[in-house]
């Protein structure tokens, strides 16, 4: 049963990851990323981290990907996507070769490091949300607070960067604002 779930969702994650990378249309790439992230969330739950799995679906697919979709549709990139990707056959070839080499190296290394290790059955302690919270708000309280500040800074930065620029003095006010009413 566990094996079946693993195979299904691993294959789903792999195929949708390939679609993310290979598809021309950014909207479809983004929607495919939802499938990848959801499948990985299921794998998290299989690995005995149900909280992380739920969080993955909530935060990643619920918030981050929606943000991506929002920007893709806001910028209306269809025209850009339709234009052929210029040249780059050599680049793609070498990227593919490098990818294969990396998979081979890390695959062998990970396999050798962990294949002998017998995977113990899940312990209730690893899945327990209460002790997870105790750890998070105990030993990791400072990083937790720092992450909170980081998010605040990111929100402010995003707002400032994406804000429509004030019509600067000395510039042509009409032409400097391409998003203006037409």
């Amino acid at each position, binding site marked *: 049963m566990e094996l079946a779930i693993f195979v299904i969702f691993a294959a789903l994650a792999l195929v949708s990851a*390939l679609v993310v990378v290979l598809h021309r249309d950014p909207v479809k790439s983004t929607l495919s990323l939802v499938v990848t992230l959801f499948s990985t969330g299921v794998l998290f739950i299989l690995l005995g981290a149900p909280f992380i799995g739920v969080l993955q679906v909530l935060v990643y697919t619920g918030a981050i990907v929606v943000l991506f979709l929002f920007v893709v549709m806001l910028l209306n990139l269809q025209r850009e996507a339709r234009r052929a990707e210029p040249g780059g056959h050599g680049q793609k070839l070498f990227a593919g070769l490098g990818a294969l080499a990396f998979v081979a190296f890390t695959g062998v290394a990970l396999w050798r490091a962990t294949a002998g290790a017998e995977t113990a059955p899940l312990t209730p302690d690893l899945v327990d949300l209460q002790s997870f919270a105790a750890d998070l708000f105990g030993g990791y309280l400072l990083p937790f607070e720092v992450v909170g500040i980081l998010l605040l800074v990111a929100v402010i930065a995003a707002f400032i960067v994406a804000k429509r620029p004030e019509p600067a003095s000395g510039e042509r006010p009409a032409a400097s604002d*391409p998003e203006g009413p037409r």
Partner: protein
Amino acid sequence: MIVPVSWYLVLAAVLFVVGTAGALTRRNGITIFLSIELMLNSVNLTLVGYSRLLEDRTGQIVVLFVLAVAAAEAAVGLALFIALYRHRRTIDLDRVNLMRW
């Protein structure tokens, strides 16, 4: 049957490579960003896998921080793309080379 953790780790390595290849070969800024998210996600899978193997909760806690940093990164990056598009009318990263060499 318990699925061995090494299978998860190899899957994570493959996903990471798919993301890397995408980030290196694509030109559309959004797609490169999606590839980076893919890479972060595969690292999360590795962390949770080792957390399971070593029966240590630290990996899961680090994943929580990675999620938060990914959210911050997405917010700032997408804001940059919006600003970029407003100025240059493109997010084709081959045509945005203002700060390249």
